[in-house]
């Protein structure tokens, strides 16, 4: 097992945990959105034996995420985990989803645990194998899209870690029986798929391409209508747009109305945009960059395939990527930036924090009232 933690690390963890708890307690006092509703792990419902996770455990998974971000980050680079964990603790994106009991907090926890297991492979193979196997099975039973994502992660070895074939075989074997049983409930599978893959279900999409084809044919370009305004090209085009929207900076660094009750809060504060870009450019020098970006792209899939994309709740599973990149940039800030710019960015972050809190406290109830009417 990994070496025991040092005193410094212990105090850092206690400090981050305090920030995490205080931030959430602080938000509870304003928000009416905290719903400790029970959530079931998706696919197990199909076996008529659902596993219900009580709502109160989600903040605990949030704490788990916090610690895992800290541990994974610190193994990558000194202080990376510390900065990333502080960002997670203070991020309105994670605060809201922790407190509203999102299943994606749990999924993020499992994914972080999976990568923690991969890191462990270098030191403690047995524990690592156990962690990876159990987490992989849980992941697949929590979100149906993991059936696609996880095998790619494991078999293609894009994480850069060498995964034992025995682990892969164990995972596949342990999945076979319940998967076979779940396929007996075909309607249930279809229902879950419909809920998770809604990208092409928008009626307007097909109407759009039909309108284009109709007008082109009417104008005497029937062949071009078939070749250029082909339904499959149009849907492919729409898919690319959706992917691009999910990697657009505006989605993460500007106020989003879609993030539940945070009408005017950005998932990530704009002051962190510069460190994020710095971190990203620094990361381009990393030899494992391609694998790392491939993982991020894979994890975008739940949001990309959602009916309303980008879905910030589903994107929570890639939030650690952003926290790591920002932290990666922050570790370099002192070297590459003047004090004036750093101060400016700090002021912007503080102002946005205060603005977010006051907005949620004072305007959000009003908005809810107006838009409900």
């Amino acid at each position, binding site marked *: 097992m990994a070496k025991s933690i040092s005193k410094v690390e212990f105090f850092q963890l206690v400090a981050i945990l305090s920030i995490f708890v205080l931030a959430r307690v602080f938000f509870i006092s*304003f928000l009416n959105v905290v719903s400790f509703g029970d959530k079931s792990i998706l696919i197990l419902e199909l076996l008529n034996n659902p596993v219900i996770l009580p709502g109160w455990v989600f903040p605990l998974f949030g704490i788990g995420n916090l610690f895992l971000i800290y541990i994974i980050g610190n193994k990558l680079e000194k202080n990376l985990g510390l900065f990333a964990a502080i960002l997670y603790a203070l991020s309105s994106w994670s605060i809201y989803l922790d407190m509203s009991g999102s299943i994606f907090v749990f999924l993020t926890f499992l994914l972080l645990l999976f990568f923690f297991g991969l890191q462990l492979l270098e030191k403690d193979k047995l524990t690592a194998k156990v962690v990876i196997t159990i987490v992989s099975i849980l992941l697949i039973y929590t979100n149906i899209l993991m059936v696609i994502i996880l095998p790619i992660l494991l078999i293609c070895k894009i994480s850069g870690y060498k995964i034992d074939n025995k682990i892969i075989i164990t995972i596949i074997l342990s999945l076979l029986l319940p998967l076979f049983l779940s396929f007996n409930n075909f309607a249930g599978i279809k229902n879950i798929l419909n809920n998770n893959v809604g990208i092409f279900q928008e009626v*307007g999409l097909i*109407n*759009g391409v039909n*309108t*284009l084809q109709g*007008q*082109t044919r009417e*104008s005497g*370009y029937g062949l*071009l209508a078939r*070749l*250029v*305004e082909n339904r499959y*090209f*149009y849907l492919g*085009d*729409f898919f*690319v*747009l959706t992917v*691009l*929207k999910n990697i*657009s*900076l*505006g989605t993460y*660094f*500007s*106020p989003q*109305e879609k993030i539940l009750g945070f*009408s*005017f809060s*950005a998932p990530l504060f*704009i002051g962190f945009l510069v460190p994020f870009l710095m971190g990203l*450019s620094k990361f*381009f020098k990393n030899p494992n960059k391609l694998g790392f970006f491939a993982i991020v792209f894979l994890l975008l899939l739940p949001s990309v395939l959602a009916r309303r994309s980008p879905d910030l709740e589903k994107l929570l599973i890639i939030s650690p990527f952003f926290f790591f990149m920002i932290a990666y940039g922050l570790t370099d800030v002192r070297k590459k930036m003047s004090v004036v710019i750093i101060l400016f960015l700090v002021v912007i972050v503080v*102002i*946005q924090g*205060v*603005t977010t809190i*006051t*907005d949620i*406290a*004072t*305007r959000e*109830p*009003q*908005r809810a*009232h*107006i838009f409900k009417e």
Partner: protein
Amino acid sequence: MKNLLVRYQVFIFLVALTLIGGLLRLYQNDKNPISLSIDEVAFGYNAYSVLKTGRDEYGKFLPITFKSVGDYKNPVVVYTMIPSIYFLGLNAFSIRLPTALIATLSIPLFYLLFVLITRNKKYAIGATLLLAISPWHIYYSRYISDHLIALAFVVCGMISFLKMIEGKKFWVIPAAIFLVGSMYTYHAERLFIPIFSLALIVLYFRQINANRKIFLLFVISACILVLPLVYSTIFGPDKARVQMTLIIKDIEFQRNVAFKTYSINNTYQFLTSTNAPLLFFYWVRKYLYYIHPGFLFYSGLNMTTNGILGLGIMYIFEIPWLILGIITLLKKKVLNYRLIFAWVLIGLIPASLTLNEQHPSRSFLILPMTLLISSVGMFSFFNLIKKNLSKYSYPIYFLFTLLIIWNLLFAFLVFKVHFPKQKGEDFMEGTKETVEYALANQDKYQEIVFDPRRGIYGPDIVSIPHMYILFYSKYDPYKYQTEEKIHGNNFTSFDKYTIREIDWRVDRNKKGTLFIGSPWSLQEKNLKEGEILKRVYLSGGDLAFLIVSPKP
């Protein structure tokens, strides 16, 4: 000899691009866009009025701001139209010609700028090729676009500026005239040029310091030229235009923020007493949404109905080029990369400070640099394939060529088929036919009434029929300036024309009057047989207007 040949090749290539670009910009530009927009007829008639009388429609002598329909238009476009109206008469082609010509001449002009910035002919040619076929530039070059003319001025100004800071005194006056001239031409430049000038001082401090006297002369000339504009913006009518379009008036901002806050306790009252911080972060969102993929590659030009994927300001095949271009610039492999980034980042500020959705005309300023980045990315893309994917180069080139062909064909269909059918109403399609009918039959009626409201889904568009009447009838400007016009509560009247809402319950009794209105004000179920004289349809097939005269 070899050098001469290379130079000759570049020249031929440029001429060819200019000709192709000119063809794409001028071919049938009087028919597509399908009709003259409100702004176009207003610009056109004011130019006609200045040509005939030296005064605008309100009788103001050679104004530097045209009040027009209350939106205070910039003067340069109006004055550039005068020669073509003089030679070709007042019609759609003559008023659209100056924009199309300037757009065509921009092709070699942009090349000069690209060469000056990058000192790399390869990048410059690539960017010029992209300019010649750019959907963004073609779209705006086919009708009157003050921002397109302003951008041409900025490009001329930048060429002169870059020459000037090399110590060439000759370029001082052109630099000042073109850069300040762009501020007189379009609103976005009024903010862009001052901020960008500061950035230029920082970026080229060494050269400027070495040529202090020349630069001082430039500053003095620019300040003198800009004075009337400053006066007009602070004290004159231009102030109204600025206030009308500011981000604070944005409907979404107003909807979400500008209401009385709900106070849980007084602790937060002082923090919520101002909307300024929220406005700032809302502006950040607007700014970032100008680099949103939907705007850049899918529907930025707004040439198709909402919800249908159309054309963005760039082609879809430019996606990898843009990304690789940015990476190449970040790796500092291109000369003056800081200038390129500064141009884009500052160029988006004016657009993001205004209301409504992302506006392709307000952000038009960044066009040259997006082309240049794309061109840099295009060559990086080829290098990447050559170095790392040489085994698969043929299939990659084949697939990418197919993508380019598909994208260009789709763009052709959008321009040729979908844009006229889906956006006719935005260009007031049908108004010309109604006015021409009224003019041809005006002697039969004592009064001709136009209802300014129209719209397919509701009477939510308010047009300016009087301007179309003036334009298509080539109404004597002197007569219009001097004759008595009656302005009442929601109506305007001159000659035998009245612009007001039609109330058929009352108006059905007015014999000898011609009524022109949308089906919202002239519902067919209320009309007797034979009262409908003409129906005017949009290209998309929807009924736009009914021309009606009450029967006894």
